[in-house]
């Protein structure tokens, strides 16, 4: 399996995918506090035109929460970009037939799945940590992170949502033949869950709850409200992986 893992790593770096993703997540990491820092200046510059519209700008107070709000707005975008770039991971190999030579050498299909999954989960974790770390660092420097409650818990929650989405990506990759099918499947389910989340009764049990990090940090909700959503996500991840393994075994390469 190590050999395949090495090959996956080579693929991500040599095709430029790794570079693009690292750049995007680092950029977001910097943009979050940057936006917060620039808000007062922006407000000042726009105050005249705002006044014409009837808005009166008073003193603008900016703190770490402004930056964190940006973080929780930008991270889903980062996730979407990640999924877009990862959608061809399996399907490109089906199309070109490159897996056939590996399989005919006796490499078990499970190991192929394990290596690809490891890199997908691993890179999401690293990229997320990088973005989070940068934002956290700047926030600590300019303001004070102490005002946010359950900072780490909220961060882990959103990370878990990302893991859940990646599990969907892997499942659809094992089942479909083209990257567009993978995107439709992953996007469809994620969107569906997000929409269902609008119903207050379902809200507690859906993985989409995990995206609501700001509520937690502002003290509007408590960690225990998130346990059901997290459990649902974790169970689904396991289910996706098991199904993916079964489907890949039977897939005609």
């Amino acid at each position, binding site marked *: 399996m*190590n*050999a*395949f893992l*090495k*090959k996956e790593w*080579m*693929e991500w770096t*040599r*095709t430029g995918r790794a570079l693009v993703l690292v750049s995007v997540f680092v950029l977001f990491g910097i943009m979050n506090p940057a936006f917060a820092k620039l808000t007062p200046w922006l407000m000042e510059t726009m105050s005249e035109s705002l006044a014409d519209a009837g808005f009166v700008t008073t003193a603008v107070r900016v703190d770490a929460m402004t930056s964190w709000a940006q973080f929780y707005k930008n991270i889903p975008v980062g996730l979407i970009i990640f999924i877009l770039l990862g959608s061809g991971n399996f399907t490109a190999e089906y199309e*070109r*037939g*490159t897996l*056939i*030579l*590996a*399989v*005919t*050498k*006796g*490499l*078990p*299909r*499970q190991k192929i799945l394990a290596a690809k999954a490891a890199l997908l989960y691993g890179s999401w974790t690293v990229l997320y940590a990088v973005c989070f770390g940068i934002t956290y660092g700047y926030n600590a420097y300019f303001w004070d992170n102490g005002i946010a409650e359950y900072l780490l818990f909220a961060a882990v929650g959103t990370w878990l949502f990302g893991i859940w989405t990646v599990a969907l990506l892997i499942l659809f990759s094992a089942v479909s033949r083209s990257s567009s099918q993978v995107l439709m499947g992953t996007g469809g389910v994620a969107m569906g869950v997000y929409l269902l989340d609008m119903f207050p009764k379902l809200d507690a049990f859906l993985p989409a709850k995990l995206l609501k990090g700001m509520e937690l940090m502002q003290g509007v909700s408590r960690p225990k409200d998130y346990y059901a959503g997290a459990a649902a996500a974790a169970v689904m991840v396991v289910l996706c992986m098991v199904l993916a393994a079964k489907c890949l*075994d*039977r897939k*005609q*390469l």
Partner: protein
Amino acid sequence: MDMLTLTHVAKNFGEKQVLRDVSFAVPEHTVFGFVGQNGAGKTTAMKLILGLLTISEGEIMVDGTPVRYGNTPTNRVVGYLPDVPEFYSYMTPSEYLRFCGEISGMAAKEIKSRSEELLRLVGLKGETHRIKGFSRGMKQRLGVAQALFGHPKLLICDEPTSALDPAGRKELLDILTAVKEETTVLFSTHILSDVEHICDQMAFLHDGKIALQGPLDEVRKRRKASAVTVETERTEDAELLRQKFPYLRVSGKRSLVLEEAERLPEVMYYIADRRLEVMRIERQETTLSDLFMEVVGK
């Protein structure tokens, strides 16, 4: 001992029956030619042997072990060269071979020496560019190298010479003959002359069944002798030849066809003796359909 046996193998894709009742055996350390027209089912049969397709009926054994769909253990002793090999274009040849070696669990030192050996054999030694820029012929050569990498007991090649120029084709056939000592070769083709050059045995797939099989000598006997065309510079010379050799058939103003190729020396002796000016003397290759017509027409 037989390295590969197919017993009453059938394969259908829905309603389409591609293989009906295929049975043949490939003895160890032979080069076996698997011949058939385009669409006969050669690639399908090979994919069944490799466990890449599910079998509808029958059994396939490689080195005494049955073949299973999906993760078949038999693939550890098989080397496969597809008809259009596709690699990871961002790798160099040696990186790709290292990847192959690592998958098979070979030690690093062995991987290095085997890579050098095989790259030299296929003429890719010293090639440090990425596979992305490779021509089809170069990809084919790398394909042979990766197929032979793990010292396979059975080497399966799907139309290996189709992408190569005449020089490359000869080189590849030489390689296949050379590796006969170490392994057993099964290759599919629709080029009869390739089969004639290097195969010990052959099987002809048609209509889902094996229409003809056996050692090449037997098959040769059944093959119709090729006709020869003689074309002269001047019409009078052609007329002259026709009169002298009545068995020559007229096929144009200045060309004649000699059906019985054994008589060619007589005709050539006459031409040389009289110093007749000749445009060409050409032997018509027996095409696959000729042989096939002969066999199936019975």
